[in-house]
Each structure stands twice: as C-alpha cells, then as structure tokens.
C-alpha cells in the first residue's frame, strides 16, 4: 500500500477518503529514513478529533519534485503505549509533537524536549503551568542566568528568554513563548462566516497580513474549486512582494539601529514608510489589510495605481540600492555582522528551518521556487537567493538582494499589465467541497506559511491549522547565539525577526 497521497500546491483540495490511513510504525520507519534527505521537509503535522479517537495528518514537502505528500494514521485511542517520537531522530518535528502532546495528552516516547509549546497546562501534569515553565539549567559556580521577558521592555510581544552565560558568553538560550492565547485556530472553526475568517487570517501576524490572507484565500479557492483569474493572481503577487520589500527594508533599518548606525537607520526608515504608503495608496491600509479576499478583490488595480506603484517601487529600488552598496562596504558594520550568529546548513536542515533564514544558511527553502502556485507557477520563474556564510551578515545580504529582486518582479509584472474589469468582487458564500482536506503554501517575507483546513460533509470547516515560519525558526535563533557574546543577541534576534503572535496562535 502507498504510504502517501501525492499532490501539489496547484491542485485542488483532496478528499479525506483518498488520504491513505497507514500504520504508524511503518510511517515512522519511512520518515526516519526519508527525512535524512534535505529535499524533504515537514509542512504540517497535526491531530484532529474523529469519532473513534484521533486522526493524525502529516503534510510533507518534496522540494525536488514539487510534490506534497499527505498521509494520516489513527492509533488505537485506548492504547497506553504512546507513539515513538520522531523528534528524537529529526528535531524538525519538535513543535508539532509538543503541540499534540499539550493539546491531546499524547505521549511521545523518548521525546528529548517535551515541554509546553503554547498552553500553560499540561494534560498529564496539572501542576505544570506557564509560571513553572521548566527552564533548562546548568550547574556551575562560574555560570550565571540572565532572564529577559516575558514582559518586554520594548514595544514587542511577550516571550521569555533565559540565557545561561559564562561571563559574556552565552552557553545556552531557551526561548519560552506561549504567553498569548488568541484562539486563532478555534475561532476560524467556531464561526463559518468567511469574511470574518478572512479578517482573522489578516490578524494572525500583523507583519505578514498579506501573506497569511493569501494563504487563507488560496485554501478557500481550492475548496470552492475556483481557479483564480490570472489578473487576480498577478495582483496578489504584487501585494506579497510589496510586503516583502517593506519588511526587508524595515529589518535592514532595525539591524542598523541595533549597532548604533544612525545613517542606515534613517535611510531605511524613510524607504520603509514610502513602501507601506504605496500599499496604503492601493488599498487604504499600510499593512495591506483588506487587500486580499477569497475569490476576488475589492481593490483591483487601475492604470493610475499601477503607474503609482511602478514609480514608487522604481524610486525605492534606486535608493535602497545605494544603501545596499554602502552597507556592503561599511567596515564597522561588517565587523559586527560577519561571523556572528552562525547556523550551519546541516543544523538549519535538521531543525527544519524555512524561508529567508534558511536561504541565508545556504538551504534552499522557497515555496515560490519549489512549490509555486498562481502567478509564480505560470509566469514568474523565481530564482531563489541563497547565501553561503550562514551568519548575521548573510541574513542581511539575503534581504539586500531580495528587495531588489522583488522590485524587479513588480516592475516586470506591472510593465505589460493592462487591467481589465474581469476581476470579480469577493465571494464569501461559494459552496465548499465536503469531506476534503485543503492546504495552501505561500512564501511570505519570513518564509513558508502553511494553512490546512478539513471540511465536514456539509462543506463547513471543522479544523483549521495555521503554521507561521516562526514556529520552525525560533529554534534557529537559540542555536545562532550559542557561544556568541550575550550583547550580540539583539542583532541575532533582529536578523531573524521572528513573530511572537505567529507562534502563539
């Protein structure tokens, strides 16, 4: 029997009945072997309640063949044995197994790090709460612990960072998130109003509003058997690339701020404002909220808006390129960023790193190239940018280059675009396919965003799972600061710029 159902990111939703239901032992044995190959990485792995207990779904991405491998299994609900932990072999599975452990009390045998992921309560141990989070500790007279958070001194969100240091050198960093309980996934199911769901998708992570909403819209369109119009797909790509430009520029400025380099800070702040103001001129919101809607758009581009976007993007590209050339030749900046915060390629692959951070560690993870959908699949043949040095400077250099690349894409997409009136208004009531699993993969600026939904026989969504790239990459930050000076933590943190709310759904 086939272990996996093979599909891809452009195909429509798959029927639940078509997904093979396999034996966990066989799956475990296969994954133990298969995941050694860097062409595979796990996109999502979750459990859901069914009549006879729990059914587990696993989505595996094959980056070489552009296939998405889906499988499921249903262990005996009354078995006390627990499942063998895949995390013990492949750390990339850790957030998924930890989530299932805390949600359903499933025990994973030999899991090396079975700590709460988001929720304060542990089904097996009721005394375990967020206040008594079991931080890792090392004994030693020369070591000291530094705790940062969870109430953050700055304006960002809650997260506790516990450093174990030997003098100025960090030996270990543990990041405990899960202080916000927003109930995103249950809210998506509780109310079947699709406009409301769209608004929730927009709020999953404020800095990736466009990418998350695009993932939601594509997922719904697959369930509604709707093939988006090429113009609509084109405009979505422009929106995502604009978001990428804005965030990459903002991060360039933030990195400059953290090393006290005023010149690049102010230059990037001005450019970022210009970028998000362009988005505002398009749809009325600087972060692109209200821009993406399922099965249509409320803000189709007009000739004037195209002209405005092209003009602004051209100017941003020109000015950012000046900043970029200066940055690459600024010795004091290079001295701070080079050889700092290394995450070697094999480490990045082992922990399942994705997106821009993975590409900066010379690991090719880019949904736009490996699992393209919409306009990326048909018109735009994306060449991912990878960097070899695996350090903070690589992550900055990836941003420097991707901004220019995205600006070129926008110019290329809009240069020969003559908008017609055939973009439909959004449809929030289209009937959805019943008994199906639909997923969407979108490369946001931070990395791979994966949304998965299951429907019941009436076409109502019964399970909605969101995965922000931060879920994978927080561990990369913890690895990057090992043996670095503790004062270099801020620049490492900024170089990843991960989302707290994308993690704490």
């Amino acid at each position, binding site marked *: 029997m086939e272990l996996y159902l093979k599909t891809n990111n452009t195909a429509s939703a798959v029927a639940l009945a078509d997904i093979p239901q396999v034996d966990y032992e066989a799956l475990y044995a296969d994954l133990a072997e298969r995941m050694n190959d860097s062409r595979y990485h796990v996109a999502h792995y979750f459990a859901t309640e069914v009549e006879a207990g729990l059914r587990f779904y696993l989505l595996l991405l094959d980056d070489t063949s552009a296939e998405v491998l889906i499988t499921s299994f249903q262990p005996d609900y009354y078995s006390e044995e627990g499942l063998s932990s895949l995390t013990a072999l492949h750390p990339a599975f850790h957030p998924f197994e930890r989530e299932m452990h805390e949600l359903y009390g499933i025990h994973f045998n030999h899991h090396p790090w079975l700590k709460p992921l988001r929720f304060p309560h542990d089904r097996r141990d009721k005394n375990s709460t967020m206040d008594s989070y079991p931080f890792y500790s090392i004994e030693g007279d020369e070591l000291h612990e530094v705790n940062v958070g969870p109430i953050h001194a700055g304006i960002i969100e809650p997260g506790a960072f516990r450093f174990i240091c030997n003098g100025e050198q960090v030996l270990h960093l543990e990041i405990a998130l899960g202080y916000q309980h927003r109930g995103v996934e249950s809210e998506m199911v509780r109310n079947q109003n699709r406009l409301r769901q769209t608004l929730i998708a927009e709020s999953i992570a404020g800095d990736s509003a466009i990418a998350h909403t695009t993932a939601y819209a594509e997922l719904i369109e697959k369930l509604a058997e709707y093939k988006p119009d090429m113009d609509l797909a084109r405009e979505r790509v422009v929106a995502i690339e604009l978001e990428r430009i804005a965030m990459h520029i903002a991060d360039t400025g933030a990195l400059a701020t953290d090393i006290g380099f005023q010149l690049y800070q102010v230059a990037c702040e001005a450019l970022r404002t210009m970028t998000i103001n362009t988005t505002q001129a398009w749809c009325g919101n600087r972060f692109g909220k209200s821009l993406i809607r399922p099965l249509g758009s409320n803000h189709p581009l007009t000739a004037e808006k195209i002209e405005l976007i092209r003009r602004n993007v051209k100017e941003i590209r020109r000015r950012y390129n000046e900043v970029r050339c200066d940055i690459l030749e600024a010795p004091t900046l290079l001295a701070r960023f080079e050889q700092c915060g290394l995450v070697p390629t094999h480490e990045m692959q082992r922990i399942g790193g994705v997106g821009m951070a993975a590409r900066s560690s010379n690991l090719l993870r880019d949904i736009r190239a490996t699992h393209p959908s919409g306009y990326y699949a048909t018109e735009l043949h994306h060449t991912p940018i990878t960097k070899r040095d695996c350090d903070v400077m690589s992550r900055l250099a990836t941003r420097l280059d991707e901004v220019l690349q995205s600006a070129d894409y926008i110019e290329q997409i809009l240069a020969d675009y003559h908008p017609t009136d055939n973009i439909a208004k959004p449809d929030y009531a289209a009937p959805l396919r019943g008994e199906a699993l639909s997923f969407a993969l979108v490369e946001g600026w931070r990395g791979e965003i994966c949304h998965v939904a299951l429907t019941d026989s009436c076409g109502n969504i019964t399970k909605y799972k969101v995965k922000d790239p931060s879920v994978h990459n927080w561990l990369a930050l913890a690895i990057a600061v090992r043996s670095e000076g503790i004062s270099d*933590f*801020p620049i490492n943190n900024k170089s990843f710029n991960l989302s707290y709310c994308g993690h704490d759904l």
Partner: protein
Amino acid sequence: MLVKLLNTLLMIVVALSITGVINRTRALLAGRKGIRFMQHIYNVRLQLRKGAVYSPTTSLLFRVAPCVYLGAALMAFLFIPVADLYPLLSFNGDIILVAYLLALSRVALILAAMDTGSSFEGMGASREALYGALVEPALMMAMATLALFCGYSSFAQIFETAQELDMNLTVVLLLVSYVFVIIMFIEAGRVPVDDPRTHLELTMIHEVMCLDYSGIDLAMIHIAGWLKNATIAMIAANAISVVFCFHWQFAAPLAIFGTGIAIGIVESLRARNKLSRNTTYILTIVAMSALVLLTGFLLMQNIDI
C-alpha cells in the same frame, strides 16, 4: 577672584552645551530637524522635580551612590582651568586627585548597580569595571606627559607654563589631546564603545547601571555625566589651544564644538564595536598614550631623533 568665577561659569556652559551640540550634529547628519538645543536640560529639570522610586531589594548604598557620583564629578570639574583663566580649586598634585575622583565616581555607580541584584545591572557593572580599569593607565599617562613637559603637577600650573613650551612638543601635545578625546568617548559611554541611545539592556554599559534610578537620582547621574564630559573635554581643548591660541575665548568654544561635533559625526557614521573588541580598542589608546609619554620624555632630553 573674578577670573576664577569666569572660569567656573565657562566650565558650566561647556558642561551644559556639549550634549546639545551632539544632538544637533546627529540630527543634521540624519536629515532631521532634531530636538531643541536645550532639550536635555529640560528633561533633567523635569526629573529634578520628581521624587524617586526605590526597588525593595536595594540598600542604603543604592541611595547614596548618586550623591557620591555627582560629588566626585563636581570636585574634579572644579580643578580644570579654561586656557589662561584660573580654576576655583588648585594645588600641587591635583592631577592625581582628578584622576581618582573620576575613578571614585565610577566605583560608586558600579557598587550601586551591583546592589540592585539585577542580572542586567550586574553585567553592566562588570563591563564598566573592566573598561574603567583599562582606560585608567591611558588617562594617567596622558596627564603624566603634561606634567613632564611643564614640571608641575596641577592643571592650573601646567597650562600656565605650557604656552612657553618648545614648538618641538607641538605634535606631542596634539596627540595628548587626541588621547583625551578618545578617553572622553569611553568615559561618556559614546559610540564606538557604548551607545547611549540603545534600548537593548543586553548591550548597554553605562545606561544599564542607571536602569533602576528614577527622578532626582537619575537627574544627578545625568548632571554628573555632563560634568565629567566637560572635565575631559576641557583638558583636551586646553592641550590644543596651547599650540594654536592660548585664550579662553578660543578654548571654551573648542571644548564645546570640537568634542560635540566629533562625537556627533562618529555616532552617525559608524557602528558600535562588538563588545569583545572594546578591550582591544581601549588598549590601543593605552598603547598610544604610552608612546606619547615616551616620545615626550625623549624630546625633553633634547635627543635628536
């Protein structure tokens, strides 16, 4: 007496203005309008009107430290002449006193930071202690060079006689003033050693030690910082004006604008050092002042080099 009062008044003007010039320079280079020139003074005035909040983990040490810090800085401040004027206080050997008053102020703040029991402040104190210990030889040797040239060991007498010095020593004097400017960068916690504007506790040095202070205590720490800056900036300006034009009309503006603009430009156009590189940076200054002292000594012996 009038001379002494004018001297003190000028020193106060220098102390109050340097921060304003730094802010203005940074704003200009950033293409911004910038805050008011006197904004830092208004901020401190506001803090002076407020009470202070103390953490329950702190002891008397924490409350006394700002007074010691300010007192020591003020004492040192009163020993410095503005070019041809005469300082309020002066006696033979006061250069040693000034150096150790600066050290005393540092010790007070370090102890207070340790007293809070916060892990951030402990790290800040450890960094400050290390850099303080490293920068002290540079300060002493630079002062020793001045004393060597003039044969006196009080600032007032040194600069009084310095204008009759041999022109051979010009280069050495300029180098001494350069060393003093760099020492000021370090003492004042400026880029490249420290960044007073950072919001990141993990990277702070001076700022993190003041995190638990509020209200009037914080104001005292700020004022003491200005006085320390003025003290070192004025010594550097004096060393330069000995070479060019030994008048207070020249030396006082030089202290304000020379150091203010220098710091403003450096803070705009370069990044902070990696923390572990700071030790190398400071040791370079120590090496340089050792070289200055040696060169000065050789020149004094009238050896043809």
